[in-house]
């Protein structure tokens, strides 16, 4: 599993709520996850649950790092 850089921000992460990788990254940075209307991401068809948890872990770690 590689890192999910900004070049992947337009990638659709949750097909049921139309959540993109970039929206999740931005929400984690701003400490605003879950976003309004995206609370059920990963919980409907469940197909993206693995990717969602993977990205949540990654972006939460990035958000905790001190800004340089």
């Amino acid at each position: 599993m590689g890192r999910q850089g900004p070049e992947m921000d337009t990638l659709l992460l949750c097909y049921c709520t139309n959540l993109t990788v970039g929206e999740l990254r931005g929400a984690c940075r701003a400490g605003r996850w879950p976003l309004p209307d995206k609370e059920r991401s990963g919980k409907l068809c469940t197909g993206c649950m693995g990717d969602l948890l993977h990205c949540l872990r990654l972006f939460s770690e990035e958000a905790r790092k001190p800004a340089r």
Partner: protein
Amino acid sequence: MSSSDSSALLSATFHEEGYEHLVELVHQRDADARRRLRSLDLALYDADGKLLVSIPVDPGQEILDLGALVAAHAPGAGRIMAAFEARYDERVFPYRPHHYAYLHRRGSSLPSLYYAVNAVLGGVPDRIGATGLNNFETYLFRPRGASERHSVLIGNLSRFAPGEAQISTYYAGARRTNEVTLGPKAHVEVALDPEHAGARLERVEIKAVFRLASYVVGRRTPSGELVIFDHLFTYFK
């Protein structure tokens, strides 16, 4: 395109050489108009999850010849997972669109198979109110002759995360379990023992943390020709 009227669906099936394999891109029709997807891309993956080719498909096309596309773009690659990446207008499809498929071994006298292509990612927005648990599935086997062997085909359509599946088979109360781990886009066929301790295979169950592409397969012995290619059934909450 505004996000409010755009929906996404990723469906998947498996193809092996020697079969005529036609996919009806949109099954739903009505008296007034043919319904079309907004866009469709087809991607083919080998068993290790390597992308072999990605092909944009004209969404106005009604029938896609998957066998011909695999023969042209991925000859000799063994079992292929074909992923159908669709975008559609929720006003045109108030429910999720489905792809249906026809499968027949060339030159075979066995009957053709028809099946619904697995919808793996998407198509279950809140507005549909779906209640199925689609990452826990089961399939009951009818008593059949010894000239048929069963297996499950499983593929992981995730982009980043490995997928783990527990495959349980049931024989007159006895349960046996296998576990498989698949990298992104990898796929596998898991053979099911037809008997255990003198009891025949009655049921298979697949449990996964998240939805995987999954089919039950029956093969005539010794030729290996497909006689079942079917989806499993979900449990209800």
